[in-house]
């Protein structure tokens, strides 16, 4: 079945001016321009079905936002084919816009001076939402978040979290088939993140909205996505279920210990003892985590060795977390 989004061999290149240094360089730039090409997205293909939530992941500068801009019709692909809802986004930007919602974290699209409710009413007219559709959506919003205090506040007086929440509500208002969320939880506190995850989850369930989500917070991924797509340097590294990915790392387990003494110093010491494993510390909860590859050494061996050198107050054993899986992939690639 053809997906609601079909991307085939898409590449996007930017031409950027190679600036020369110094005054002499600037003068040279005036006369002979030296361009270099940056390949932001490199031969990416994927197919996304109606109703999916896809986590689109990758380190900074991987090409995620660029891909989203192409799917929304703002950027034209250098080569390859994109079909969103059966039409080519770049050629039918306004038509495509009727069926999608977009949120770029930290860049509000609402009218700055207007109270949220007025923005909503304008959107109702712009997207020609029927009265009943609008009322139904507002009722749904009312049941999902505490929307009342936001409605009469001008957007510019809102906190970042309130604004992001409002932007997400605005993006879903016309019941679009697809919503693109580019780092929607960036800069938000723990409780606002949780609220937004619940909201996205509920709207996806209720309205069968397809959601493409980019984020650097694996909490978002754990809460929302079954399928993830990973790209790096514009190239696709992975496209499948997250569980499948974790099974690659089946032999990895995380040993967490609490020990006496200075946290940072102890972490360093343990890292010194196990140079092959990644050792990290969580300063808030004072855990030291050792990511153990059981093909090399059993977790229980590591524990008993540690007991000889350190006074262990508490310990926990965990399967590898999404965060660690993703980190390993960014660092080492998929094997």
């Amino acid at each position, binding site marked *: 079945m053809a997906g609601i989004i079909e991307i085939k061999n898409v590449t996007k290149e930017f031409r950027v001016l190679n600036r020369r240094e110094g005054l002499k360089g600037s003068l040279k730039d005036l006369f002979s321009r030296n361009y270099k090409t940056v390949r932001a997205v490199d031969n990416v293909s994927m197919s996304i079905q109606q109703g999916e939530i896809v986590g689109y992941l990758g380190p900074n*500068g991987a090409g995620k936002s660029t891909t989203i*801009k192409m799917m929304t019709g*703002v950027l034209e692909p250098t080569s390859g084919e994109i079909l969103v809802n059966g039409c080519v986004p770049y050629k039918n930007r306004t038509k495509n*816009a009727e069926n999608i919602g977009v949120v770029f974290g930290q*860049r*509000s699209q609402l*009218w700055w*001076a207007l109270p949220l409710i007025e923005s909503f009413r304008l959107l109702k*007219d*712009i997207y020609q939402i029927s009265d009943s559709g609008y009322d139904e959506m507002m009722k749904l919003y009312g049941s999902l978040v505490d929307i009342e205090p936001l409605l009469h506040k001008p957007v510019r007086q809102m906190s970042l979290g309130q604004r992001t929440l409002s932007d997400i509500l605005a993006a879903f208002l016309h019941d679009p088939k697809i919503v693109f969320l580019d780092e929607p939880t960036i800069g938000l506190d723990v409780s606002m993140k949780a609220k937004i995850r619940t909201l996205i989850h509920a709207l996806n369930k209720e309205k069968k909205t397809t959601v493409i989500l980019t984020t650097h917070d694996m909490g978002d991924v754990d809460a929302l996505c079954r399928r993830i797509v990973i790209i790096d340097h514009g190239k696709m590294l992975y496209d499948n279920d997250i569980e499948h990915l974790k099974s690659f790392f089946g032999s990895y387990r995380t040993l967490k210990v609490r020990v006496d003494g200075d946290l940072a110093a102890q972490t360093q010491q343990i890292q010194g003892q196990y140079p092959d494993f990644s050792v990290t510390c969580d300063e808030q909860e004072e855990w030291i985590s050792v990511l153990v590859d059981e093909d090399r050494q059993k977790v229980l061996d590591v524990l008993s060795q540690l007991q000889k050198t350190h006074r262990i107050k508490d310990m926990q054993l965990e399967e590898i977390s999404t965060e660690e899986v993703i980190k390993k992939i960014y660092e080492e690639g998929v094997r």
Partner: protein
Amino acid sequence: MKRKGLRFYLHIYRKILAQDIKSKMSYRADFIISTIGMIFTNISGFVGFWILFRNFPSINGWSYHEMLFLYGFSLVSITPVQCLFDNNWSLRQQVYSGDFIKYCFRPINLFFYYQSEVFDIKGLGQLAFGIGTIAYSWSRIGLAFTPLMLLKLIVFLITASLIMIALQNAAAATCFWIQNSFYVLDLAFRFKDYAKYPVTIFSTVFRFIFTFIVPIAFIAYYPSLVILRPDEIPLLSWLSPFIGIAFFFVSYKIWMRGATRYSGTGS
């Protein structure tokens, strides 16, 4: 309502406008101060004009009151660009910072959506001032007041406004291609100061420039000839409504072309 029809856009515009004015009114001090500022700007502009011209009974065959008419005419024709297209002034900043991208996600005309965001209410005072000046000079020159004359006045005021808008659109749109486009926009806006003089007082070189390159002579001079010099109307005056429409259309195309090839910034 048909999407993209004129009614649709008027309806949206009215709504945004009403909201915008409401929210501006709520910042009362701000509103009052900027209104006072606007009144003083107009008065000082007028005083400058008066000092310059009261000593000359006529310049190049233009009487004081005719000059005054031209002055009023240019004030009125600059009002639409100030009220309705003021957001052009922030275009450069928005393009540079990447915020411009937010206008690209709505299913309506990009140019309309961008310009509709800002309505500069201060321009209305200038409109009143300009209309007053036109009315005063009209009666002093002793022009007839017939429906036909009024129709001509309105048609040519619209023409002049279109040219002013076109000039500003094109100047603002340069930011899609070059970095330091502020100077272009600023320059274009400064040129309007020359619009209030009869183009015949300039040297041939400038006359050519102001007619064919930066067509500010069409903002007040050529259109008002139709009213002030009905016996010797040059062809360019009759052509000016078409030139106005053509210029506006071209500037709109340039603006839209810039906007659609806009690639944004990283992230």
